[in-house]
């Protein structure tokens, strides 16, 4: 009994003065390791999960150790049968996990290069697809531009060319939508935010859609602002967002109607809106509006649009990537879509914005 007591005291002292520091340091090491894993795997959800699991397991172990220590201080006889095994298992776990983690780190590097490779393949696919699909469409578009500019064509021919032109525009839009969705689905959207004049983005979007607006005989009232309105955004995503909701209003407003654009600058947020005078969006569609492939059914039947329901889903993603929100209000006499974008402030990172007046797709 006396020998047992000496041993128990010795072990207790050892656990208190060397056991705890080793375990706490080991804990830090494991957390650091898991954070490294998270970073080297390209900050994926899997990496995050590893961090959470590591921290929660360590906390459990620390609580257990704490309880064991209190127990040990109260009853020294419990040290050898109860507390010592707990600490020994702990040592063992930390040693084994550290060894495995070092091995996994090497795998993570391989995994990471696979991700880079996939992302490169995605870029390549998008480049080839956009080029291959758009080139013939551009060729048709520009040839029609030439044909329509010819004053000698008959009214009948003019009508036919216009129909082909409109259908071709639909194809071009569809290709753009597919590419946008591919970009969203295959990875995060890279934004390059900078000081952008939203009025220029609106003008660029309008210029792209102008042929369609003219062919639908619609009138577009531009925002009543003559000075630049600077926002902090990715110009391409901003122009694309404006273009998408304007294009949506062109479709649903119907021929011979008016579309109104408005910009409301604010200290923190700038709000952009587009109003059309098409049919009211039913309450039942509200939930589905910004989801992939949702279509407003009433409008589908009455106007007979075939082009898919990707536009608003893409717009929502782009608006949110720029740090804004999107919503709409629909009444009997028309529908207004709104989105916000952060106003430009001096403190914003002054990354160089695109010099182009045109949008980069």
């Amino acid at each position: 009994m006396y020998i047992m007591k000496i041993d128990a005291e010795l072990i207790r002292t050892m656990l208190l003065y060397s056991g705890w520091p080793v375990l706490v340091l080991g804990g830090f090491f494991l957390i650091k390791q898991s954070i490294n894993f998270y970073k080297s795997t390209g900050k994926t959800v899997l990496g995050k999960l590893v961090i959470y699991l590591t921290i929660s397991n360590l906390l459990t172990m620390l609580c257990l150790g704490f309880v064991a220590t209190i127990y040990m201080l109260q009853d020294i006889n419990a040290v050898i049968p109860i507390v010592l095994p707990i600490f020994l298992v702990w040592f063992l776990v930390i040693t084994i996990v550290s060894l495995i983690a070092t091995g996994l780190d090497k795998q993570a590097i391989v995994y990471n290069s696979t991700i880079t490779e996939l992302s490169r393949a995605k870029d390549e696919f998008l480049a080839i697809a956009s080029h291959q699909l758009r080139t013939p469409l551009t060729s048709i578009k520009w040839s029609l531009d030439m044909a329509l500019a010819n004053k000698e064509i008959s009214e009948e021919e003019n009508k036919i060319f216009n129909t082909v032109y409109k259908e071709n525009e639909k194809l071009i839009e569809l290709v753009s939508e597919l590419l946008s969705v591919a970009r969203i689905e295959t990875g995060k959207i890279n934004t390059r935010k900078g000081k952008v004049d939203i009025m220029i983005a609106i003008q660029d979007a309008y210029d792209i859609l102008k042929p369609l607006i003219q062919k639908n005989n619609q009138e577009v009232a531009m925002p009543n602002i003559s000075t630049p309105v600077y926002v902090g955004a990715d110009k391409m995503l901003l122009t694309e967002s404006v273009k998408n909701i304007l294009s949506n209003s062109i479709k649903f407003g119907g021929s011979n109607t008016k579309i109104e654009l408005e910009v409301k600058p604010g200290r923190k947020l700038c709000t952009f809106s587009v109003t059309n005078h098409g049919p009211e969006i039913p309450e039942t569609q509200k939930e589905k509006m910004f989801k992939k492939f949702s279509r407003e059914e009433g409008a589908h039947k009455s106007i007979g649009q075939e082009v898919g329901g990707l536009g608003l889903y893409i717009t929502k993603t782009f608006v949110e990537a720029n740090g804004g929100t999107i919503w709409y209000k629909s009444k009997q006499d028309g529908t207004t879509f709104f989105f916000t974008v952060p106003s430009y402030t001096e403190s914003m990172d002054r990354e160089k914005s695109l010099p182009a007046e045109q949008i980069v797709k």
Partner: protein
Amino acid sequence: MEKKILIVEDEEMIRSPLVQKLNSENLKVLEADNGDDGFQLALTERPAVILLDISLPTISGMQVMKMIREKDEWGKKVPIIILTNLEANDEIMDGVVNDNPAYYIVKANSTLESVVEKIKSCLPL
């Protein structure tokens, strides 16, 4: 001196309506269907504006723009219009930021008329 416009574009069906349109506006057009020829033609003819496609045989348009910009004083200043159907990736964006083209035009999104307008806006008076 006559103002010349250089078009570097490999797709005949895209190039020809553009050339026709520019000719009808009495503008002199030089054509090249690959990056190498485009670069050589730019150096020998010194056009007033250069239109560059990105995906070209031999050397890419982004590369041609970089080479022109690095060549000499004229090359640093000549207005370059990128005319492409490509989805911009990081590499293209970096090139756009570094080599400062006058315009980056997505072909499928532009009418022939708007392209010509942009070319004209780059011409010296």
